[in-house]
């Protein structure tokens, strides 16, 4: 397993380099002087000249790239035009919200998606399956912003159970109870993805149930519930784990929408606002963070996959 992990880490390097080149070129593809773009409209000619010299904008592109990469590796992602603060600090300020939102979303996806998927598969063909399958279909096809607004209308406006927007930090007044601000957003974000997992678990369990080894398990005289969990569900998880990586990709763009709908001070809303403010250093920084995160998640998914399927790591 360790050797496999190390091997996978090495295969990340070329991908990361390619991604970094794309992110770097982003600023240079926008027409105009990159130093002027990075500093924004209010910059004085002196400031522009100073940054140009610092970043080597008068030197060949590939040298600029390595200068930039060197800075990035030291954690220097530039200065936000809007906040006049280092980009890393700006992103960091949205990190708490986004990480908590992502964790709660994953929690719902697993807590809702897996059991309902198992239920739907074990009861397949019955009315229970009909209801869960159509429910999953509905949830999967609902646009995130619409579901978010709907939940706000019901649970915040009408019932008044949960706050409709914002998120004070856990270190503010209220402490851990501030998590209630994230319940509706995380449910909004979880719904379509949990629905995806329901459908995936159901389909892959029905596939596995037809396999010969399940007949062997039944021939041992095992209780049907044990056959379902230990033999069918366990093997179906292999296909489900493989899909988790894709779920994450969808999650990122849906998180942007959700954070905007619920006015959460997270990285997703930061992206939207930075685009509106033409805060290119921040956009660049966030994209870089997302790319790295995406690769780490996919590595974790692959490792989970190798753990779930003994045939993988040896190939």
């Amino acid at each position, binding site marked *: 397993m360790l050797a496999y992990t190390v091997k996978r880490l090495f295969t990340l390097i070329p991908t990361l380099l390619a991604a970094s080149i794309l992110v770097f070129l982003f600023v240079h593809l926008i027409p105009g002087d990159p130093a002027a773009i990075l500093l924004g409209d209010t910059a004085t000619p002196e400031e522009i000249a100073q940054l140009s010299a610092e970043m080597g904008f008068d030197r060949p592109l590939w040298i600029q790239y390595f200068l930039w990469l060197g800075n990035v590796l030291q954690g220097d992602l530039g200065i936000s035009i809007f906040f006049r603060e280092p980009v890393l600090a700006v992103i960091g300020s949205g990190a708490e919200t986004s990480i908590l939102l992502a964790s709660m979303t994953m929690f719902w996806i697993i807590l809702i998606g897996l059991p309902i998927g198992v239920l739907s598969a074990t009861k397949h063909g019955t009315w229970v399956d009909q209801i869960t399958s159509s429910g999953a279909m509905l949830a999967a096809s609902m646009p995130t912003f619409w579901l978010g607004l709907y939940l706000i209308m019901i649970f915040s406006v009408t019932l008044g159970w949960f706050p409709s927007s914002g998120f004070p930090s856990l270190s503010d007044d209220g402490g851990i109870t501030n998590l209630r601000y994230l319940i509706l957003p995380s449910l909004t974000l979880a719904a379509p993805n949990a629905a995806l997992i329901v459908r995936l678990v159901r389909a892959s369990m029905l596939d596995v149930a037809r*396999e*010969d*080894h399940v*007949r*062997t*398990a*039944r*021939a*041992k*005289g*095992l*209780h049907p519930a044990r056959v379902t969990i230990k*033999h069918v569900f*366990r*093997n179906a998880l*292999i296909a489900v784990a493989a899909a988790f990586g894709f779920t994450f990709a969808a999650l990122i763009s849906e998180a942007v929408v959700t954070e905007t709908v619920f006015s959460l001070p997270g990285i997703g809303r930061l992206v939207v606002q930075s685009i509106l403010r033409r805060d290119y250093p921040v956009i660049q920084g966030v994209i870089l963070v997302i790319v790295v995160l995406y690769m780490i998640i996919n590595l974790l998914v692959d490792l989970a996959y190798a753990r*779930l*399927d*003994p*045939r993988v790591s040896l190939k």
Partner: protein
Amino acid sequence: MALLEVENLEIAVSTQRNLLPVVQGVSFTVDENETLGIVGESGCGKSLTSLAIMGLLGTSPVRITGGSIHFDGMNLLALSERERRAIMGNRMAMIFQEPMTSLNPVYRIGDQIVENLRQHQNLSHAAARDRSVELLSLVRIPDPSERIDSFPHQMSGGQRQRVMIAMALSCDPKLLIADEPTTALDVTVQKEVLDLMADLQSRMGTAIVLISHDLGVIAETCDKVAVMYRGKIAEAASTADLFAELLHPYTRGLLNSIPVVDRDVEWLEAIPGRVPTLEETLTGCAFQPRCELATELCACEAPQTTQFKPGHSVQCHFAGQDRS
């Protein structure tokens, strides 16, 4: 009373419109220490019969519609699901045709044997593991204490079938059902696995139902034979009696079709024609369209089972006759 008594077993596949009979009026008995061979072409109901005995028809669209199965004095079809499960993998065990896919790929083989043992016997994990090593050496897996931690994909087909046998024998079953246990293996391995089963039987006194579509395999390993054709038993006798006098033209066809040297020969071609499908309703004898002895009688009237000689039954209007 014999260990296993199957009487007038009827099995049908339920479709949207109706029930199609697949197995009709099948009867046989198996005693302790005895091997019954069931032979017949593909699709004639051998597997369904064995799954019905084992209790594995489960959720499939296939149902037992008549007859009885008695095992060890119990009427199996009258037992609750729970009572049935207490027998499966315990006093009655089964091995399957597909060794490559019959083991769960995500668990070590040892754990899969341990699971079977602990389901029926009150053993600690360590004791069950020790017993599994013994079982693996019993089925002649080299280095059993190491191989017990292998995953199925790390073993060959023959080894996997041995593991299946070890698992099936783990609780000392009185009856072992082997549904084409060697069909998927190559010839030399086939022989090893069959020898192993015969050897274990002589040591443990297990009754065996061996299903095959190879009459050669049956002749070598079985005490008695039931020849199945499209859901019915065409001919049944002790192996010696059967080969002394082949009464049913279908049995003769099967025997002629045993390939001698070249295993690649498609042996089914030796009997012209094909098995009628389930959807085709038949008035006369099911073998009649392919039979060289067929007359008008065969086309309109299905033959009843007759005792041609004591212990040798046959379903044919012209049993034992030649074309002449």
